[in-house]
């Protein structure tokens, strides 16, 4: 029956959360904001493309002076540009509206700015003058070099692919960092979004005086395990919802959203790092959840329990203060401490795992610490829940609870009952 009840608790806790309107308001607000941002990007890209196309086909009159001597009459003719007598004459022509733009190429354009003067057409459209001035000069230089290949190379338009080796094995570079880094993102998402719910999960039974009825039908371990697993499921639902706009955008609208410009390298799924990442995520989540549940079991009200939330949040953000060290010098003392201290271990180890600096032995130790810590905290949470959940109005003395027998309060009846 205990196993049956685990499923019952799990489904009750999961369903009652995901069927609440406020859950979806909170959950959907994030992707909604992302969708709005993407929408704005899409609209912006569309208007940019439209404007660029219009600019491309737009005709405007140009005059120029070229002290460098790079631009030939043929080059200028290609852009329908006419030579001005002097820079002053060119500027005057623009001011009088005789021409739309005047380009003043200096003697050494590689070190001295090309000066561009144009009739004001608005902030965005004015950009066309500089673009055409650049294009004229580039064209002239390419003509001088006489080889498109050499021109491209001289312009630095070179594609380089780097291959690095870890021993004889080819290492993956950024493409191998991103997939295991996802576990870190998920960990942060789960903890930040669900910490409050974790903290309040057992407080609810206490505040609503449901505990005694629950304890006669259910083992505390089953109740708490059910709540923890349900929270994990709820967190995953939230993460999927949060990531859905990104995935949809990436899969179906990459061009519209200019996501191709991100130049994401091919992703490499290293099974070892992915497994280690998953285990650290699960272990870390379990440790934080059971700890928050234990805190909730001690406190009489959600308000008092909330004071501990900040502490737990700080613990997951502290490793980021040393992120440069975590990445560049993973063997430094501070990183080692963060790696093995249970409450900073998930973030530090997930970072190191993503960057490939977490050895298998280290990973094994961290995973063992997290799961052992979670098991200890689960036992503690159960003990505190057993002892503290019928202490309806006062804070439980942890030392007293631990000193007590499995269900035996050692000091004073915890409630007003006779």
């Amino acid at each position, binding site marked *: 029956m205990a196993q049956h009840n685990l499923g019952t608790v799990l489904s009750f806790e999961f369903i009652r959360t995901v069927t609440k309107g406020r859950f979806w308001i909170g959950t959907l607000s994030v992707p909604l904001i992302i969708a709005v941002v993407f929408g704005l990007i899409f609209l912006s890209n569309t208007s940019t493309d439209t404007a660029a196309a219009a600019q491309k086909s737009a005709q405007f009159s140009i005059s120029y002076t070229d002290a460098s001597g790079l631009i030939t009459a043929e080059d200028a003719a290609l852009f329908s540009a006419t030579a001005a007598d002097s820079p002053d004459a060119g500027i005057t022509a623009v001011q009088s509206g005789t021409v739309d733009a005047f380009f003043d190429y200096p003697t050494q354009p590689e070190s001295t700015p090309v000066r561009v003067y144009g009739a004001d057409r608005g902030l965005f459209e004015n950009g066309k003058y500089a673009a055409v001035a650049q294009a004229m000069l580039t064209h002239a230089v390419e003509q001088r070099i006489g080889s498109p290949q050499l021109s491209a190379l001289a312009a630095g338009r070179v594609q380089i692919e780097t291959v690095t080796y870890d021993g004889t094995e080819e290492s993956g570079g950024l493409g191998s960092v991103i997939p295991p880094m996802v576990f870190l993102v998920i960990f942060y998402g789960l903890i930040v979004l669900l910490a409050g719910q974790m903290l309040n999960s057992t407080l609810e039974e206490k505040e609503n005086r449901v505990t005694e009825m629950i304890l006669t039908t*259910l083992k505390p371990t089953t109740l708490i395990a059910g709540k923890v697993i349900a929270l994990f499921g709820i967190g995953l639902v939230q993460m999927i919802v949060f990531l859905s706009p990104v995935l949809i955008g990436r899969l179906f609208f990459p061009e519209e959203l200019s996501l191709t410009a991100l130049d994401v390298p091919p992703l490499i799924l290293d099974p070892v790092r992915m497994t280690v990442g998953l285990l650290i995520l699960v272990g870390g989540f379990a440790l934080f959840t059971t700890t928050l549940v234990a805190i909730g079991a001690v406190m009489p009200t959600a308000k008092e329990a909330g004071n501990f939330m900040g502490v737990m949040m700080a613990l997951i953000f502290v490793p980021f203060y040393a992120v440069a060290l975590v990445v560049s010098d993973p063997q430094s003392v501070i990183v080692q401490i963060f790696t093995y201290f249970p409450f900073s271990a998930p973030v530090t180890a997930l970072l190191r795992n993503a960057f490939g600096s977490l050895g298998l032995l280290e990973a094994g130790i961290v995973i063992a610490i997290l799961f052992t810590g979670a098991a200890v905290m689960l036992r503690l949470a159960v003990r505190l829940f057993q002892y503290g959940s019928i202490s309806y109005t006062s804070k439980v003395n942890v030392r007293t609870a631990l000193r007590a027998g499995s269900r035996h309060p050692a000091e*004073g009846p915890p409630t007003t009952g006779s």
Partner: protein
Amino acid sequence: MDEARVHISGFRMDFGDTTVVRDLSFDVHAGETFGFLGSNGSGKTTTIRALLGIYEPTAGILHINGRDFKPEHGDRLGYLPEERGLYKKEKVIDIMTYFGRLKGMGRRTARQWSLEYLARVALADRATAVLDKLSSGQQQKVQLGVTIMNNPELLILDEPTKGFDPVNRRLLMDIIAEQKQGGATVVMVTHQMEEVERLCDRVILLKDGTAEAYGTIDEVQNKYGGRIIRIRHTGAIPPSPHYEAVLEETNYSELSLTDATDEAVILKDLIDAGVTVRSFTTTKISLEDIFIRVYGDQNVPAAAGTFSTAPAPARDGA
């Protein structure tokens, strides 16, 4: 009624240096309604919690159906705790279905049973309402429903009428009677002496963590004198080996008979002693009187409308 549904033997419960219950032993037989009585702080709730495994007893045996109670045995237990409540932010039907499932019912069965119960207690239209939108009385009805789900063979009701309005109190009593009729064993922890006299087969009185009295209502009444003579009179009541004056006011007294002397003999003795008797009524000592006698020396806070440490007014004759 031979089988002990509940067996408690040598139970002791310490909280730190304080012993709350000491050497308590009693049985509750299958099918009976058992009254568990005592003043506040006498150890009743502690005993129930230890029986249900919520507390670990310091010593003793506490068995339900011949074994220690474990949550996995709880599917045929109906427990209404003194501190009661349900998930306030959930729908009534979801709460009831959840508890039904925890008690081993299938989802559909639990839901169906809940809907039928809600219809019976005129809450059918509130099934999908969130609990804290219900009135206090309606919430009590839901709580009762959760308690009796899955046809419990043992009902433990800790201060069952506490906080209940008269309508729900009647409903509760009907349900207790129904459950008893259906074969359930009922343990009532209560201060409501009238209900105990009306419903209970046997009782135990707990005082300072020990059993002060234990047995059928008659046995307990007999232990405390059995018969009470209420007299309105003029003149002082003389001492007698046949009775003990348990209450003496200027013109009203209550005498607890200490032997089998006939009431007519007592009346004759009083008249012979010069007492002018205006009314003379014999009655059995009530549990309330026993309660007052047992706990009257303690500074017992009275439960609302249950009992008083003030002298009882004459109720019979005038």
